């Protein structure tokens, strides 16, 4: 049995989802000859470190009761640089201004010889090529499947299953909150403000929804796609962004009468990066409803491949993280 030691940096919904899925899939993973051992967990309050393996259920319970996982005063930086392990799972919240604290966590990890798996979009939207280069220079893995499309495996699909194809373009819906709002507005003929409020009450939209509804989150994901799939060294500032706040129920109704739905579509291809509301024919594979995400990849050999699935959620995101972790475990 190969033991792979990892740390989880950031213990919110995603970090806890990773812990839960490692717990529930332990037997399944062991059968593949791999033993995942979490030796450290960090959140903003501090760390828990145990080189024999942390009691994950205990950590989740403590986080719930006290608000932090911390049992010692060490920082995430100490955990990443001083505790021996192979993989850090970076799951701190996305910050699009300077990428912190995720960016520094990732740089520290790559500098101290640790592979990085992340769900954090901010550092990738700002410094993708630096991070990738650093990982390559140090012979380390840098994987980020869960940053785009949640559970939908876009990067693994393109880089592995579709290896040999040249990707001509990608179009997709990469923000579940916007998709939910537009779907509800069209179905119920309700104005934007009302549906936004409903989404906030359901926990689908944040109290400050700017990041989602102005297309910023979608743009970050598009930047990661552009860097990873098109090898374009672009950043968030290179995306032409239009959000959904001006869309009226009447516009959706007019579109519907003519067999269209309106979706916030991310487009990459032809050297342009756009996030904007678009008309999608009702029976088109991109016309998915609710909070679903979808990506349609146009390639030279395979033609068009479209995948859709859950774009958010603690366990769904952990699914992508776990696949990255297992990829490293099998190949290192």
């Amino acid at each position: 049995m190969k033991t792979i030691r990892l740390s989880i940096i950031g213990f919110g919904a995603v970090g806890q989802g990773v812990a839960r899925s490692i717990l529930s899939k332990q037997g399944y993973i062991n059968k593949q000859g791999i033993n995942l051992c979490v030796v450290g967990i960090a959140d903003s309050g501090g760390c828990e470190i145990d080189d024999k393996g942390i009691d994950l259920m205990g950590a989740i319970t403590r986080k719930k009761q006290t608000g932090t996982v911390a049992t010692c005063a060490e920082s995430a930086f100490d955990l990443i640089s001083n505790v021996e392990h192979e993989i850090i799972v970076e799951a701190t919240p996305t910050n699009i201004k300077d990428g912190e604290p995720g960016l520094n966590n990732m740089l520290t990890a790559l500098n101290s010889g640790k592979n990085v798996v992340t769900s954090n979009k901010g550092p990738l939207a700002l410094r993708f090529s630096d991070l990738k280069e650093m990982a390559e220079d140090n012979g380390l893995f840098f994987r980020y499947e869960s940053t785009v499309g949640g559970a939908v495996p876009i990067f693994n699909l393109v880089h592995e299953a579709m290896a040999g194809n040249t990707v001509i373009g990608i179009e997709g819906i990469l923000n579940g909150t916007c998709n939910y709002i537009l779907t509800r507005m069209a179905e119920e003929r309700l104005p934007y403000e009302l549906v936004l409020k409903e989404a906030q009450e359901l926990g689908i939209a944040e109290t400050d929804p700017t990041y989602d509804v102005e297309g910023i989150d979608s743009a970050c994901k598009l930047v990661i796609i552009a860097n990873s799939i098109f090898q374009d060294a672009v950043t968030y500032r290179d995306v032409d962004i239009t959000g959904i706040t001006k869309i009226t129920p009447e516009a959706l109704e007019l579109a519907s009468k003519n067999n269209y739905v309106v979706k916030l579509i991310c487009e990459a291809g032809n050297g342009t990066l756009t996030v904007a509301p678009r008309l999608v024919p009702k029976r088109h594979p991109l016309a998915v409803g609710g909070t679903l995400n979808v990506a349609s990849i146009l390639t030279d050999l395979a033609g068009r491949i479209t995948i859709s699935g859950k774009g958010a959620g603690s366990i769904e995101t952990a699914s992508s993280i776990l696949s990255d972790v297992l990829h490293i475990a099998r190949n290192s």
Partner: protein
Amino acid sequence: MIVSMTLELKDIPGQLVLALSPISELHGNIMSVVHQHEEKTPRGTIPVQITFEIDQRVLDELIERLEKSGVRVARVGEERLRSSVSLVLIGHIIHSDIGDTIDRIDSTGFAEVVDLSLSMPAIDRTSSAYLVISATGEKELKKSLEILRDVADKKDLLMIEPIRLNSEGA
């Protein structure tokens, strides 16, 4: 120019070739042929719809050649606007002079607004419009979209265009 013609052929073998060869002789580029064998006219002839691209100067010559060979030319029409796109506009569409917005497209000579539906929920709320623009070709359509994008930007209208890569459907 692109021409669409309805021809009437006698119900005997070899008539379709008779109808098509003058078009190629005059360097026309045939784009589609719809041969409705089961739909006879009261005269007992078979109607055929042909669309082709041809130099306008040889059109009369073509019609003459067709009639001489016994093919009846029932209808000749110019297929001017061949490419279309659907759009949605949101904003103060009326008060930002909708007439001018449409004129900007119509005045190009190669594109027209061929359909328009409006929804104005209340005086103090923004309006929404669905419109279809047709143009003489794909290139012209692209150009007309660029014009409208510019107009929408200046008039602070949100313009929702169709998806691009995948627009032809599944």
